Structures are given as structure tokens and as C-alpha cells.
């Protein structure tokens, strides 16, 4: 997608909220009206930089230029001016790490993207004799290369002279929310250096209960606290935009992308959950105002915090391979010509023909965390056709979701009543029905697919009183489709057992891990 020019006739006449989504592959700006309908969209992709295998970087200067451009583009397409916009909300790719010079505004290095694995060895080293869970009690996270803290440490160790500059107080750290907000509010000319609780909860440097930087952990990682931004709530006015298309407008929210989707799906009550189906899948469940420790391989994270209200926590489970398995069927296997065709192929048979596909391409993630596992297709007989395999591909996404929801129920004690879904794969009707069958719960798709941007807009709108409260946002939520379970319990149990048997067969494939 390069250009999405969405202008529709019958939306209200304003005022509006602008949401900026600084994502992994592109930056977007969407203008929403009071009903939560999209008025206009502008989007621009940025370069993915791969300096070495496993390394992924972004040019933060390019990203900031793109953000300014899409903001101007969306405002122009909407045919409005900054006077019509009540607030700006920010959502962003999480964990991607940047350090910049506060006097010049220049990044000291490309941003290190969340997918980048250069800190693998450093994370093992930081685990010392305790291992992956050394900081889990405080931060809710295992030591893994995704999170920002170790990336900051890598930069301080590897960019010449950086540690000295940081200790002198010349260097600022931020995830992409901080970078965008600092620049929006003036940059070197008085830009505010802040982050929100959801983004801070992905650094491994914040204590989940106090919502403050944990100085002991920062010290263990040898990160000077002077570089860290101020931690604020997800919905409050951080400052006002200086210059650009939205000069003078309040910058009033920040949420990591998955948390923004939780907010956009209006999962405001304990036990409400959303799952975003893209290349991978991210499921978050609202666990109320207490962080729930996970003993089943999930992450504990901050869901959101509105102003001075109590923070709301979430459990998070991610599935590494979902949409990317369909792409693999298309690009590597050549069994389909487009991703949508997987449904056509899968629908040509009644069931999986006994075949199960566990796409543990780079190991098993939540709830197993087995890096020695590799993918299998189990249960093959002469009877199995490519259509059965296509069906097994879709079922793999549904079963993996089931495993995450089971883990969430075990950790939180809350049964899932309905699953709110979004993301590209929700256009797959067979997958959505299968999901409902396997979860034995209704699966609901909202009418606005852009839940991430919507969440940022909602939080910003709450902060400036554009919407009075979360009840008003709930009233905006519209059900576009709902799938209800049609599978009998015996079949479901039997199939789940077979799936779990297939999962078992993936483990221990890699014999000696370096």
C-alpha cells in the first residue's frame, strides 16, 4: 500500500483528532471525526536497513521527515486546517531504540529496530546466573533481544565517545513515541522529552508497579538515568506542536501499537481481549489495575493509563508465524497466487484430512518458548492434498490463538467471553469461523479496521475532553461481523489433542544450541 486516499462524503464537519502511527514499515496519519470514522489517510514507507544478518535499523531522520509529510498530507486530503484539529495522538512500533544529541537534534546512530537480534549474547550475559527471568518480577519481561534496555547498552558500548556524552547529559534516549513527540514539540527549541507508560513498559527499565525507572536495573545494564525520558500517562497533554501543519495543536497521547489497538477496540474491562492478525499475531488481555505475573510464558505489560487514573495492565501473548505462513505457502511453496486464495483452496475440502501444520520456523514461542523446535507437518497420508494443507495452515493460526488464550486464563483466572479481532487476516472468513470453533467463544470484528490509529486518537481525544469518557468511546464501537462457534465439543477436544501431539513432535529438533 503506498497511498490510501480515503475521503468520504458523509462524515461530520469537525472538529477532528489526528493520529500518527509511526510503524515498522511506514508512518501514517489518519484524521478521525467524533464518531470515530476515518476522514483522511496519508502514509509513507521508510527504508529497512539490514547492515548484517539479524540486524535491522531505521533512519530516524527519514522517519521524522516522513511523519511531517504524512501529517501535512492527511490534513490537506481532509480539506481542513490546524484550527479544526483538537489534538494529536501518537502510536508507534514498540521497543525500537534511538539515542540523539539534545543540542543538535541529530541521532547518534540509526534506530535499532525491535526485530534486531544483535543483543542476543548481551541478554544472555545480563541474565548472569539467574537467566532470562532476572528482571521479570520488576518489569514483567524476560531478557530478550526485542526490548529497549539492552539495545541502549549496545549503543553506549559501540558508538565511539557516546558513553561520555551521555554521562555529560548531552544525549537523550527514546522509543519512537519520544522521538516524534520531542520533534513535534520543538526539538532543540524546547521539545519535551517524555514517553508513556506503555512504551516505557517495553524497555525492561521500568518497574511495573511504581511506573518509575528502576535505577537498580539501569545500573545493572550500565545505562545512565540522565538519558531516560520522563514517564507520563498515555492520555494527557505533553505539549503543543511547534511549526508544521498542526502548529499549536495539543500533543495528547502516546501508546505502543498493540496497546493502542487494545484501546481502539475499547477493551476497557477486565477480561476483554483483542488479537491483531498480521504477519505475526499479538493478543492482549486487559487484567485490570493489578499486574498479573505469568507462569505460562506470557508477558506482563501496561495496557494504558488515562491521566491520573489508575494504570490498567495487560497480559500479552504473541505468535511469531501467522500471516507469514500464508505468505510462505504463496512464495516458497507456490501453492497459491495471492494470500486471499488460501481460503479458496482450504474451502475446497471439508476438513484437514488428518494433517496438522506447526510452523515453528524459528522455534516455539508463547506458551512453550522452545528454541530447539522446528516446523512440522504431521499426520500425512496418501489421502492428504494441498487443500488439506491449506486448511491446516489456517488451523495453525487458530490453535496457536487457543494456546495463548488458555495460558491467559491460567494466569489471570478470567475466562475469555469474546475475542475482538483486527488486522489483515480478519478478511479470511474461514479463519475467523475456525477461530470461533476452536476457542468455543464468539469472535467479533469491529467496523473500523484501523484500531491502532483509532486507539491513539481516542486517548488524545479523552485527554482534551473531545470525548467525555470511555463509555462514549464504547458507544462509538460498532460490530461489523461476528462468528459464533459451530463445532461440537467432542470434535474440538479430539482435534486439540491431535494439534498438541503435532506440537510435541516439533521439540528437540535442533540438538545442540550454541
Amino acid at each position, binding site marked *: 500500500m503506498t497511498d490510501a486516499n480515503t475521503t468520504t*462524503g458523509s462524515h461530520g464537519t469537525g472538529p477532528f483528532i489526528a493520529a500518527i502511527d509511526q510503524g515498522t514499515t511506514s508512518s501514517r496519519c489518519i484524521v478521525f471525526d467524533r464518531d470515530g470514522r476515518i476522514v483522511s489517510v496519508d502514509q509513507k514507507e521508510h527504508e529497512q536497513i539490514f547492515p548484517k544478518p539479524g540486524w535491522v535499523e531505521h533512519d530516524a531522520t527519514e522517519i521524522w521527515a516522513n511523519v511531517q509529510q504524512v501529517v501535512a498530507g492527511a490534513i490537506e486530503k481532509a480539506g481542513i486546517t490546524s484550527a479544526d484539529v483538537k489534538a494529536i495522538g501518537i502510536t508507534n512500533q514498540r521497543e525500537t531504540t534511538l539515542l540523539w544529541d539534545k543540542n543538535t537534534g541529530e541521532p547518534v546512530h540509526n534506530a535499532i529496530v525491535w526485530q534486531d537480534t544483535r543483543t542476543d549474547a548481551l541478554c544472555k550475559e545480563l541474565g548472569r546466573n539467574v537467566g532470562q527471568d532476572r528482571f521479570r518480577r520488576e518489569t514483567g519481561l524476560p531478557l530478550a533481544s526485542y526490548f529497549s534496555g539492552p539495545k541502549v547498552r549496545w549503543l553506549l558500548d559501540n558508538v565511539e565517545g557516546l558513553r561520555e556524552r551521555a554521562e555529560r547529559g548531552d544525549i537523550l534516549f527514546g522509543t519512537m513515541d519520544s522521538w516524534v513527540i520531542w520533534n513535534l514539540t520543538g526539538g532543540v527549541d524546547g521539545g519535551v522529552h517524555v514517553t508513556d507508560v506503555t512504551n516505557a513498559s517495553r524497555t525492561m527499565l521500568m518497574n511495573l508497579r511504581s511506573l518509575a525507572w528502576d535505577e537498580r536495573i539501569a545500573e545493572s545494564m550500565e545505562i545512565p538515568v540522565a538519558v531516560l525520558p520522563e514517564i507520563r500517562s498515555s492520555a494527557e497533554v505533553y505539549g503543543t506542536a511547534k511549526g508544521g501543519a498542526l502548529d499549536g495543536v495539543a500533543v495528547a497521547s502516546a501508546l505502543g501499537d498493540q496497546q493502542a489497538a487494545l484501546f481502539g477496540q475499547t477493551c476497557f474491562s477486565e477480561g476483554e481481549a483483542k488479537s491483531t492478525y498480521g504477519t505475526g499475531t499479538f493478543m492482549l488481555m486487559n487484567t485490570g489495575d493489578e499486574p498479573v505475573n505469568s507462569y505460562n510464558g506470557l508477558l506482563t505489560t501496561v495496557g494504558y493509563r488515562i491521566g491520573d487514573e489508575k494504570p490498567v495492565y495487560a497480559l500479552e501473548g504473541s505468535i511469531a508465524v501467522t500471516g507469514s505462513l500464508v505468505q510462505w505457502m504463496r512464495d516458497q511453496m507456490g501453492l497459491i497466487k*495471492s494470500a*486471499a486464495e488460501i481460503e*479458496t483452496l482450504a474451502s475446497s475440502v471439508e476438513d484437514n484430512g488428518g494433517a496438522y501444520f506447526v510452523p515453528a520456523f524459528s522455534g516455539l514461542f508463547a506458551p512453550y518458548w522452545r528454541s530447539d523446535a522446528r516446523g512440522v507437518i504431521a499426520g500425512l497420508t496418501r489421502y492428504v492434498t494441498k487443500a488439506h494443507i491449506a486448511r491446516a495452515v489456517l488451523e495453525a493460526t487458530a490453535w496457536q490463538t487457543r494456546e495463548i488464550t488458555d495460558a491467559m486464563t491460567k494466569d489471570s483466572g478470567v475466562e475469555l467471553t469474546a475475542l475482538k479481532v483486527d488486522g489483515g487476516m480478519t478478511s479470511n472468513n474461514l479463519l475467523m469461523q475456525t477461530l470461533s470453533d476452536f476457542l468455543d467463544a464468539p469472535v467479533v470484528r469491529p*467496523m*473500523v479496521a484501523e484500531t491502532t490509529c483509532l486507539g491513539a486518537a481516542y486517548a488524545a481525544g479523552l485527554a482534551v475532553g473531545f470525548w467525555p469518557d470511555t463509555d462514549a468511546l464504547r458507544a462509538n464501537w460498532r460490530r*461489523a*461481523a461476528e462468528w459464533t462457534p459451530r463445532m461440537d465439543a467432542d470434535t474440538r477436544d479430539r482435534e486439540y489433542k491431535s494439534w498438541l501431539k503435532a506440537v510435541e513432535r516439533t521439540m528437540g529438533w535442533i540438538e545442540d544450541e550454541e
Partner: protein
Amino acid sequence: MARTIQSLERAAAMLRLLAGGERRLGLSDVASALGLAKGTAHGILRTLQQEGFVEQDPASGRYQLGAELLRLGNSYLDVHELRARALVWADDLARSSGESVYLGVLHQQGVLIIHHVFRPDDSRQVLEVGAMQPLHSTALGKVLCAYDPVAHSEVTETEREAFTPHTVTGLGEFEELLDLTRARGWAADVEETWEGVASVAAPIHDRRRMPVGAVGITGAVERVREGGELSAQLVAAVRDCARAVSRDLGAGRF
């Protein structure tokens, strides 16, 4: 044996000759392989080239199969692809119209519902993806009959059942309705299929202007009609949606 057209047979033989792997042949190779005079072979190759079935390499002057053949083979638009492309626009139509949205394609003698967006109120609704609707009485069906010759021949060859007193069953009258549909660019169904229910639909075209489906709204007749006329605002919203989906499929602006 029935009479056949020799030049078409020769053209088919040339395409077969060029098919298979990455084959590039010069004019004299083609001519001698098929036992034709060079002039004859050249005439046929030039015609095939004009239609895009054959391409000539500018450097070597050799011939190979053209891109148009590939497009012919892939011309079928997967209905799930259509749904994926239509999703955002159909959601927006439901929002702006306040009614439920259906996307339908021709399947056997009826309209297969491939996408359904609920009416945006809090009422209980059931997903109708996979359901069949009649061709001759629904707005979606009439649009398909008006624009797709296959749908048209299906509807004229089967019996047109009267579901309500308003259903148009006579062929002459039905053809007039299709003329009107083509002239206006949209079709309606006012209590012709279900009592108390009205709908409006418009065609979706792909990049080659082929009709691939229809999109429409359905609701209570009291809401869809305003003072005896179909709501102009709803008609405009449906047509906007159909155009947006067509644009996404690569059809030019129209």
C-alpha cells in the same frame, strides 16, 4: 468434418511451438517448423504480436510468448481477494448508510454472498456469508444480470419466481429493468424479494472493466425509501463504494 479456419490453426500451432520453457525463435525457425512460407508466418506472428500474445525481442528479432497469454490464464478474480479488497470500503458504507452491506458474485443460477457487514446498531445479527440470493429480484442480482452476460443468460433461461406481489417475472418487463439499471448505473429491489425490505446495489469492475461482483445495502423499506423515492444519499453512497472497490482492483476512474 466441419470447416475450420486455417490461419487460426496456424496461429495455434505457433503458440504451441513458442510455449514450454523460455523459447525464443526466429522467423525462419517458425516458418520451417510449421512448413509455411516466411511471408505467411510473418503475417500471423505480427497479428499475434498486435494482440499481445507474442512479443518480439528488439535486439535479436526473435519471437516469444507475450504477457497477454499470462493474463488470460490468470484472469479469474478470486472471490476472497475481492472480499479482502472490499473490506474497508464496505465497512465505511455500513457506517455512512447505517444499513447492512452485502457483496455478491454470480454463482450457478444465483447470487453468492461473499461478504456481509452488519448494520451498525447494537441489534443481534447473523453473518450471511455463503448464503444464496435470487438473481432476478434482488438489487445485487439485477446488477449482475445487467452487466455480466453469463448472469444474463442464466436469468433468462430459468423460471423467475414471484416472491411477493412486486416481483417482476415477465421477460420483457425484466429486460426493461436491466436497461434502466445500465442507464443509471445501479439497481434497486423494493419489496420484490422480501416484504418490508428494500436494497440498492451497484457494479464492481476489475482493471479490464469486467463486471466481477456487486455491492449494495439492504434495510427496512421505510429507511431506504424517502417519500416514495429511493434515498438519493444512499444511492450515492452505494455507488461511491462500488467505485472505490473497482479503483482498488485497478479499474480506471469513471
